[in-house]
């Protein structure tokens, strides 16, 4: 059973993908909902809104951090921001699950949002191309030594892997792409 953080955002599209690849799922709205899960997804949405709700519930933040010690977390867009080391805005929570620095809304406002192919390349596998939506997306501006590059859009890094955790700046789930979910939870 994989959980999807459901404070705000497009958590239903992740539930839809998990169903499609035969993984049972559950919405996670409280820290207790984490118990018994074998993985967690931090979806897209507004990072300030999710942070606002999490900041008032320290036990939930601690629970997610503890969970990340030995179980995989997949973050998309706002989820990546929550997993980052720093996004340089005190209204936003950074849990430092992956050692990356992030610039929010780096492509600009919604009129600059787009869909495009991204390249996914990881150990022992042929490079693959999947479609993803970049919606007021962040950019990764810096990554730590132990962080692997997983996805690129043109020459830009848009997805990273650290140990069992995966985070991307965009939304493959909105294009019904299952690759990253399989990599993270079936790998």
């Amino acid at each position, binding site marked *: 059973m994989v959980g999807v953080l459901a404070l705000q955002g497009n958590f*239903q599209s992740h539930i839809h993908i998990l169903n499609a690849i035969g993984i049972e799922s559950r919405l996670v709205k409280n820290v207790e909902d984490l118990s018994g899960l074998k993985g967690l997804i931090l979806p897209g*949405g507004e990072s300030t*809104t999710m942070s*606002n*709700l999490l900041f008032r519930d320290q036990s939930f933040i601690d629970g997610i951090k503890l969970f990340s010690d030995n179980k995989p977390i997949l973050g998309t867009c706002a989820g990546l921001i929550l997993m980052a080391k720093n996004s340089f805005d005190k209204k936003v929570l950074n849990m430092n699950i992956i050692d990356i620095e992030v610039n*929010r809304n780096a492509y600009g406002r919604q009129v600059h949002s*787009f869909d495009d192919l991204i390249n996914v390349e990881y150990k022992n596998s042929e490079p693959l191309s999947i479609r993803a*939506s970049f919606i007021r997306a962040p950019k990764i501006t810096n990554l730590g030594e132990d962080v692997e590059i997983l996805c690129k859009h043109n020459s830009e890094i848009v997805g990273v892997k650290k140990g069992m955790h995966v985070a991307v700046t965009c939304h493959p789930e909105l294009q019904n792409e299952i690759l990253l979910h399989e990599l993270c939870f079936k790998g």
Partner: protein
Amino acid sequence: MSQEYDFKTKVALAEMLKGGVIMDVTNLEQAKIAEEAGAVSVMALERIPSDIRKDGGVARMSNPHMIKEIQDNVSIPVMAKCRIGHFAEAQILQALEVDFIDESEVLTMADEHFHVDKHPFKAPFVCGARNLGEALRRIHEGAALIRTKGEAGSGNIVEAVRHMKMITSELKSLQGQDFSEKAKEFRVPIALIEEVAKNGKLPVPNFAAGGIATPADASLMMQLGAETVFVGSGIFKSDDPSERAHAIVQSVTHFADAKKVLSASYNLKDAMKGLLMSDIPEDQRFSERGE
């Protein structure tokens, strides 16, 4: 980029707003309060609906300077309203790069027969609807998000409930009906009717708006199937905007958990004073505008 991908990209932002609260704000100070309280987006407008109703006169698109000031100082998406059918106002809002354009019945209508053709725009549009026909006409015109009209500025949830239930029940009863008859009745292509009947839901997200004033109102609309709520006059016409804004955010996240909605409702001061529908003359009801 093809029109189909453009439309998907527009709907994608609506997907990201799900489970959140979009708040009406009239200045930068209110926008900051809204963002800090956890708003998922703000709607920048000069006067909130209850004041538009009180002041009378022609209500137009807001001053771009005021919208820009808010855009420059908050990091969440900023929406703004254009008049129904006023495509030049919409063009200006797009040039300003607002994240969503609300072609809104709260403003005075610019065209009594046609809404804006929304397909050529890169900025996504949200439109109000009272029933399935209106919702599908707006989607056919290119709207990426539908909201109930409710009755803006009333602080009275009755119309939003009516519109949400109407859309839900019409969706349910669509299966098994004569699609070509329905297409004629709704004035939309038969393919759109077929798609909606097959999926049992609208092809774009469906939010609630118009009359939400309390955490309980927000929970009610979410339980009736809304995917997010707009709160207009309800926050900044109350005695405790910041606390009320956050309480409504919490009650949308935990809408099905009455204990959480209860704890969000504690210690709030007075909500805005509401209006009975019988107190609003029919020709002054925003929801009657544009069908």
